[in-house]
């Protein structure tokens, strides 16, 4: 029971952190690293579940694209 509770808590905090990353990325990052998204806003809410689920990867790619630009693709 305790292990299950800990796992669920970890999952909850993971998704909450994902929510914070989603807000930051969609407000600041996406326009900086993804030229095709500039001026396009309707599709952005669709990205929230994905960012919440794989936010460490999103942060990694965000940093890579900021540092190396199009060469990182």
């Amino acid at each position: 029971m305790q292990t299950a509770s800990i796992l669920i808590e970890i999952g909850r905090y993971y998704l909450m952190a994902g929510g914070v990353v989603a807000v930051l990325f969609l407000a600041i990052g996406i326009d900086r690293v993804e030229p095709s998204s500039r001026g396009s806003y309707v599709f952005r809410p669709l990205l929230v579940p994905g960012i919440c689920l794989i936010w460490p990867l999103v942060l990694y790619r965000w940093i890579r694209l900021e540092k190396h630009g199009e060469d990182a693709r």
Partner: protein
Amino acid sequence: MSVQYMPVIWNRNKIVYDAVLLIAVALYLYVYIRVGPAFEDVTRPIDGAILRMRAFGSCAFLMLTVILCIGPLARLDRRFLPLLYNRRHFGVMTAVIAAVHANYVLGWYFNFSPTDQYVALLSSNTNYGQILGFPFEAFGIAALLILLVLAATSHDFWLSFLGAPIWKALHMFIYAAYACVVLHVALGALQGPGDPIFTALVAASVVLVSGLHFVTGRMEAKRDRGEQTAQASLQEQGWVIAGDLDEIDDTCAKVVTLSDDERVAIFKYDGKLSAITNACAHQNGPLGEGKVLWGCITCPWHGYQYNLADGRAPAPFTEKISTYRLKLVGSTILLDPNALPPGTHVNPIEFGGDS
């Protein structure tokens, strides 16, 4: 890329695809839930919630089976290609159906638990050391999480943002999800009272998915061997490997050095490949640095133009340059290093794409 992202891109074909898919799913669920009970064992009646749970669970399993069969089928027979074009909608729908199945499980087995539903789900059975009575729910949770990640990252944005290698690697987890689903079913539903139809269906799915992948794997290995043989044979005749098709950007060239004073420019344009000498007939300008327009290359130094198929300047000009023969084996470009007399027509190699 300058095209702006949209939430979902639909065209007529995709709408038909999605409509057929929705109708098929609705029909399956309707038949399972409404007609299925007429065939059940009256001594073991099934509750409505369990029936719906099984209907959605088995539907997701069958959908996943079909998704995994589409790729190899399309490689075996091009007539299956239309199924491939909108597979991502198929995948998203599968994740939704699987999530509904999980929701029914939570709502039926853990709704009145004094503890949190999710905690109860994870802690109700922790016998991970045994096969009979193994907590098969864990495999279902793993599969659902993978399906949700894949569905959530199916938009074009993710392919561009993550880059093709990472995106493809991530989406290869579909196979892990399928393995988890098979284990989830084998250690769960199949451990209950014998149901020959469902057991046969699961076995058929595993045989079909593995069989199709095995057959296409062998076919591709055979084709690769054939390509290697063809390549080796051409090399024996003196042809040289000039590189891979993907190395050349569209309307641009790759310059291959044959000797100190002989360079060949291989151009990719309009889904075709042509090779000419890299030296312009005017002042030896580097033709390989020019760009293709209307099947002609313009020398970046003084603007002299040549038709790529025959190395001749468009009329009324009369300049001619050497052309070369090319062959495409798989995606490898092979070049005959013997220059043809200036102005010799060589049919461009068509590779069937304009990328």
